[in-house]
């Protein structure tokens, strides 16, 4: 199987309106995803090099950790090592965020990024790894305390969707974006006196909704 994984799926909405799909993974410390070829970069399905950085390529932007910690290790091919090294500082600038830590090991030819999914984002942010080091294989591991991850798949018009997320803890107004807008909440929540379960995906048709979560909540907005 090209995509190796050991995961625990707790919620599946594989196909919502023939447009998007969302699965939620609750990881123990030993859970992981692994790809052995760049063809298995989700939504890219090829080695697509950055416009100006030969050592950087497009990453899969389907996995959105919202609790715990994950680490991603990219295995750089020997033949690409110099190219990746030359562009590494530029790549680090691209992924420079408070919730991301990068380390490198040029004995093993690996670059590892750790993502702290417990970090609160008060403003909307996009996927941290839209670009990744040039690599065929990579592996995502849960941190020591595990992780919770939403896998957001765009089923049609893959290039047209925008996915962004933020953290809320009290009543917050969520504004519709684009003409087609889906929202995911990581906790149970209430809108106008109606209770909704965590992890369900709703279509936002109102121009905005006031959402009250039951605790620290990651909101993921998928729109085009």
């Amino acid at each position: 199987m090209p995509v190796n994984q050991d995961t625990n799926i707790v919620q599946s909405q594989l196909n919502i309106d023939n447009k998007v799909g969302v699965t939620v993974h609750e990881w123990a410390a030993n859970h992981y995803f692994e790809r052995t070829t760049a063809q298995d970069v989700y939504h890219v399905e090829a080695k697509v090099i950055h416009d100006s950085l030969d050592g950087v390529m497009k990453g899969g932007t389907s996995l959105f950790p919202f609790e715990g910690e994950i680490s991603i290790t990219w295995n750089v091919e020997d033949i690409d090592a110099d190219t990746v090294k030359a562009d590494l500082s530029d790549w680090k600038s691209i992924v420079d965020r408070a919730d991301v830590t990068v380390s490198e090991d040029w004995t093993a030819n690996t670059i590892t990024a750790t993502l702290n999914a417990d970090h609160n984002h008060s403003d909307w942010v996009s996927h941290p790894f839209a670009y990744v080091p040039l690599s065929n294989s990579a592996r995502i591991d849960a941190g020591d305390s595990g992780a919770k991850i939403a896998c957001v798949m765009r089923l049609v018009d893959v290039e047209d969707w925008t996915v962004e997320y933020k953290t809320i803890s009290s009543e917050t107004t969520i504004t519709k974006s684009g003409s087609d807008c889906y929202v995911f909440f990581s906790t149970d929540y209430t809108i106008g006196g109606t209770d909704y379960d965590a992890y369900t995906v709703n279509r936002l048709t109102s121009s905005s909704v006031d959402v009250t979560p039951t605790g620290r909540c990651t909101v993921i907005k998928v729109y085009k």
Partner: protein
Amino acid sequence: MKYKIHVSGYLEQTNQLLVSFSSDETNRQAADYQSLAFDVVPYGDVTAQQILDAIAKVAPTICSDIRVAETYEGDDSRAEDLRAFVGQSFEYDENDLLPSGAAQERDAQANTEAEQAEEI
């Protein structure tokens, strides 16, 4: 679309039927095209008509190939590129030839019966 098949021979020693094909879109009639030899043994214990009917099923594919050949316009540049391949060997990774796992997974999800999102 109408297809015609022309039986130009039956080789008893090798149990082969020689058949050629044409369609409404091909430039010539079936009898004018080169025949293909079909082994009749694999069809088993069936009638001659059933063998002919089974062979006729490949007519759309054969006639499509004829149309491609008849409408092909030469490309000197491509011919030069193809000549450059001669004498060389090439290797492909299976991942370049088969759909990726990511693509298969996305297709599988897209083919799952859709559920309607609640509107808020």
